[in-house]
C-alpha cells in the first residue's frame, strides 16, 4: 500500500491529536461571520437564528444529537442547500466580509472557495488523477498538462495520499479503501485551493485506524485553512477542534473554545449531552 520511496509513515511527523485539542487558538481572525441564520425545508424550520464567528486557521467542530441542524448549517455556508428543492435560508453569512447569499455572489465561485467533504466518501467514477484534476479542470486553474499534474501531485501530497497512490494514478478512485477514498476526496477539495473546508461527519463511515489518519490530516490542514467539521462523536470533536459549537433542536446552544465546552459548559443542555444523558 505504502509507496516505495517513502518508508516512513507520515504519522511520525505529526503531532499526536490529543495534544492538538489543547493548542491555543492562534491568530484567530474571524473567517466566517454568521448573524441570525435560519433555514427552512418547506414549512419546517430547521435552524433558528444562529449567530457564530468561525476563526481562520483553526478547526471548529459542530456537535449535537442527530437532526439538530448542524449539517444543515454547514450546508448553508457553501450554499449547498440551493440544490435541495424547497430549502430556504435567511440571515447573514459572511466569508471574509462578503455575504454569501448576496445576489452578486455566484455559487460556483463560492463553492470553489469553500470546499466540502461528505459523510460517505464519494469519489467520482473516474481515475484517481481525474478525481483530483476535476476541480482545476472545470475552473480552468491549470495552464497545460504539466501544471495540472503538479496541482494533482501537490494536492495528493497535502492529503497524505501521494505515497500510496503515486504509482496507480490512473486506476479508478473507487478501487481505494474507504479511508483512502476519503483522503482522495479531501485532496480533490484542496486542489481548487479553497479558503474554507467544510467536513460533514467525514469519519462516520470509516474504521478507527482510517479515522485516526483523517484526524491527523485535519490537524495538518488547519495550518492553512479554516476548517469546519460536523461530528456526532464528542471524542473526535475534543481531539481535532479548537473551537466547538453545540447545536440542539435547530438552535445554537453554546459555543466556545473546545476546552471550555468540554470541561466547563455553561448550559445544562450542553452538560447533559456531553455527559451522555441524551444524544
Amino acid at each position, binding site marked *: 500500500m505504502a509507496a516505495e520511496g517513502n518508508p516512513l509513515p507520515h504519522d511520525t511527523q505529526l503531532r499526536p491529536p490529543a495534544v492538538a485539542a489543547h493548542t491555543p487558538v492562534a491568530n484567530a481572525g474571524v473567517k466566517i461571520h454568521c448573524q441570525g441564520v435560519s433555514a427552512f425545508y418547506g414549512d419546517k424550520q430547521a435552524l433558528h437564528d444562529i449567530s457564530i464567528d468561525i476563526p481562520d486557521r483553526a478547526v471548529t467542530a459542530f456537535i449535537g444529537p442527530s437532526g439538530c441542524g448542524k449539517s444543515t448549517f454547514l450546508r448553508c455556508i457553501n450554499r449547498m442547500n440551493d440544490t435541495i428543492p424547497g430549502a430556504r435560508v435567511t440571515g447573514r453569512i459572511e466569508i471574509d466580509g462578503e455575504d454569501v447569499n448576496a445576489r452578486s455572489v*455566484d455559487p460556483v*465561485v463560492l463553492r470553489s472557495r469553500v470546499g466540502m467533504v461528505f459523510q460517505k466518501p464519494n469519489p467520482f467514477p473516474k481515475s484517481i488523477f481525474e478525481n483530483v484534476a476535476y476541480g482545476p479542470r472545470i*475552473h*480552468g*486553474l*491549470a495552464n497545460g498538462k504539466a501544471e495540472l499534474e503538479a496541482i494533482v*501531485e501537490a494536492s495528493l501530497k497535502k492529503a497524505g495520499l501521494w505515497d500510496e497512490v503515486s504509482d496507480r494514478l490512473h486506476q479508478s478512485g473507487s478501487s481505494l479503501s474507504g479511508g483512502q477514498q476519503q483522503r482522495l476526496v479531501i485532496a480533490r477539495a484542496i486542489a481548487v485551493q479553497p479558503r474554507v473546508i467544510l467536513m460533514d461527519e467525514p469519519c462516520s463511515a470509516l474504521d478507527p485506524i482510517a479515522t485516526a489518519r483523517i484526524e491527523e490530516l485535519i490537524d*495538518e490542514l488547519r495550518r492553512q485553512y479554516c476548517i469546519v467539521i460536523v461530528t456526532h462523536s464528542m471524542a473526535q470533536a475534543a481531539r481535532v477542534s479548537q473551537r466547538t459549537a453545540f447545536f440542539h433542536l435547530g438552535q445554537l446552544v453554546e459555543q466556545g473554545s473546545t476546552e471550555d465546552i468540554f470541561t466547563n459548559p455553561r448550559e445544562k443542555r450542553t452538560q447533559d449531552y456531553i455527559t451522555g444523558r441524551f444524544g
Partner: protein
Amino acid sequence: MTDARNLPSRDLSEKRLKQRHAAEARFKLYGQLAIVIALGFLVVLLARVVQQGYTVFWTHSITTSVYLDPARIDRADLEGNNFDYLAAQNLLKRLKVQDDALGLASGEAMDLVSRDLGYRILGAIKDDPKVIGTTLTFTVPVKANADLYYKGEIERSTPETDRKLSNRQLDWLDRLEAEGLVRSHFNSDFFTNSDSTEPEQAGVLGAVVGSALMLLVAAFIAVPVGVLAAVWLEEFAPRGRLSGFIEVNINNLAAVPSIVYGLLGLVLFINWLGFPRSAPLTGGLVLALMSLPTIIIATRAALKAVPPSIREAALGMGASRTQTVFHHVLPQAAPGVMTGIILSLAHALGETAPLLMIGMVAFTPGLPESLASAASVLPVQVFIWENAAEAAFHERTAGAIIVLLVFMILMNATAVILRRRFEKRW
C-alpha cells in the same frame, strides 16, 4: 508532507466564469428545447388527428319524398328493383331537372344520396305492400362526397375534372340545401354502424365491440396467469438458477417485437390448434401472451414494494406462507397490480401488428356473433380505413383514432388515479 509544494495560486477569471455560465444556460436550453420538441410532437399529433377527424361527428341527411310508382315496381321480384334509381328520378323531378335519354342525370343524382335509401324503400314495401302507389318520405344520410361538399372539404373552386362531384351535382346540392331538405346533425350512425364499403354508412361499433371482446379474452387469461406467476416468482420460488432463468426469460419476452407474437399466434393457434382466423378469441389469446410479461413484471414490482415486516407479522402469527401471501401481501399490493394490469391492457388495446398476422384485416361488416366469429378491432379498423382510397374514409380514420384514443386515455387516467389514490409510502 513537509515537502508538499505550494499550489500555484490563481483566482477564477471573470471571462472563464462567463463562458461557463453561458455554457450552463445553453445546456439548460437544450433540455428545455428537447421537452418542447417532445411535447410539440404530441400536440401536433393530436391536433392533426382532431383536425382531420372532428368532422366525422356530424353529418348531413336529406329528406326526400319518393312516389312508389306501381308501374315501375316489380312485385314478383322486389329485391331486383332498383329503388335507388327510382328515388333519384324523384329527386330530379323535385329539382325540376329533365333526365336525359341515357339516364346520366339520374345516375348523378343517385350519387348524392346514400344507398341506404334503396334498402329503406325495400323495407317499407316488405313491411306493408300497400304502400306501393303512395308517396313516402324518407330521411337518409347524403352520400359521403356530398357530405364532404357540405362540410367544405370539396370546393367549387377546384376544377371540375379534379373533383369527385360535377358542377351540376354541386348546383343540385346547393338547391337542396336552400330548400331546407338537407339537415346537419350529430353523426350517430358512426357509433351505431359497423364497417361498410360505403363511407357514409361505415361506423366503429363493430370494431369497438370486437376490441372489447378481445380485451376481455386477453384479460381473462393474462390477468390471473400473470398475477399468479408473479406471486410464485416473488414469494415462493426458490432463489436460484431456475428463478433467475425465468426472470431473464420474462424480461426478454417483454421486449420481443409484437409482430413476433402474431407469428406465434398464426402458427400455434391457427395452424396447429385450428383456432378460427380473425376471431376475437384468437386475437385475445395472442394479446394475452403479449401482455403476460408486462403484467408479471408490474405485479412483481408491486409485491416487492410491500415491506417484509408485513410478511413477518403474518408468519409470526402462525399463518402459512400461502395464507400470508393471499391474505396480506397481495391485498396490500393490489392497487399497484391493478395499475400495471390496466396499463398493460391499454397497450394491448392499441396493438395492431400481431392482429394483422392472424388475419384480422378481413373486411367484417356487422357485429361479431361470438368469440369465434370474424370481427374487426379498433386499431385494425384504423389501418383498413387508412388504406381505403375514398377521401371520405380519411375523416373516418381520424374519427376512429379519436375513439381509440378516448378509450386509451380513459384507461390510462384510471391507472393514474388508482396510483395517486392508493399509493402507499411505507
